[in-house]
């Protein structure tokens, strides 16, 4: 009996480094399990697919109540005071820390991950409204982004799919 292929769509709306990964990891897992994957990049999420931004995603420690000193091995729940988090260099520091941890686990960079997803058959689109707002064009996006579509188009193409908003 032929089963209909399961479909899943991820709406990527964030541009911070930490929020870029959920869709990438889950999308890759889905493709590996035979699930059709569509990625829709909107607003800040477009940073993930912009040629000039994808290699420069950051994660700021400022006002990030989840980021604790335990990331650097300090035991307990000691946070990073915001008065420190706002200092120049702190975002770069936190970003480097995260990147090092990812590299240690051999997790690909965002650019590489998107390439893998594309090669494995994931469909990727940018949101027209966001594109207009930021005055971007197709050429500004990395290879693999198939087009710029409207919210209505997205709803049509994800009929029957499970939609995950990130």
């Amino acid at each position, binding site marked *: 009996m032929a089963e209909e292929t399961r479909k899943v769509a991820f709406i990527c709306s964030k541009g911070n480094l930490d929020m870029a990964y959920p869709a990438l990891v889950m999308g890759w*897992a889905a493709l590996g399990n035979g699930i059709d994957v569509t990625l829709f990049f909107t607003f800040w999420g477009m940073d993930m697919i912009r040629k000039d931004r994808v290699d420069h995603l950051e994660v700021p420690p400022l006002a990030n109540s989840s980021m604790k000193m335990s990331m650097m091995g300090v035991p307990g729940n000691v946070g990073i005071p915001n008065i420190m988090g706002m200092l120049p260099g702190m975002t770069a520091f936190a970003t480097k820390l995260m990147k090092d941890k990812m590299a240690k686990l051999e997790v690909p960079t965002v650019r590489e991950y998107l*390439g*893998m997803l594309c090669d494995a058959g994931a469909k990727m689109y940018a949101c027209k409204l966001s594109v207009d707002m930021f005055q971007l064009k197709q050429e500004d996006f990395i290879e693999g982004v198939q087009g710029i579509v409207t919210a209505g188009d997205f709803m049509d193409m994800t009929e029957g799919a499970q939609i995950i908003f990130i």
Partner: protein
Amino acid sequence: MATRVICGKTVQVNDEGFMTDPSEWTKEICEALAIEEGVGELTPAHWKVIEFCRQDAKATGKAPTLRRITSTAGVSTKDLFALFPKGPAKKVALMSGLGKPEGCV
């Protein structure tokens, strides 16, 4: 733990159908599983992937993840997904007589 008969040989499998003892695997079993999994007849390109996975699992103690296959076996992502359509992750491991890969990449 259950058993099933493939190609006239009784092998041990877990709840999800993955073989639990890699030493019980044979090429005939692999070919039979390939048909079951919808991969069809196996070409040298398929065998390259399967043999890599078995060797890698023997060396590291666990089934290789997809990324490990693409980065270490010299098989591109596109080729891997073309050879084993609809979910290479589980299919390759199952056909190779290995457990499910444990990593997320």
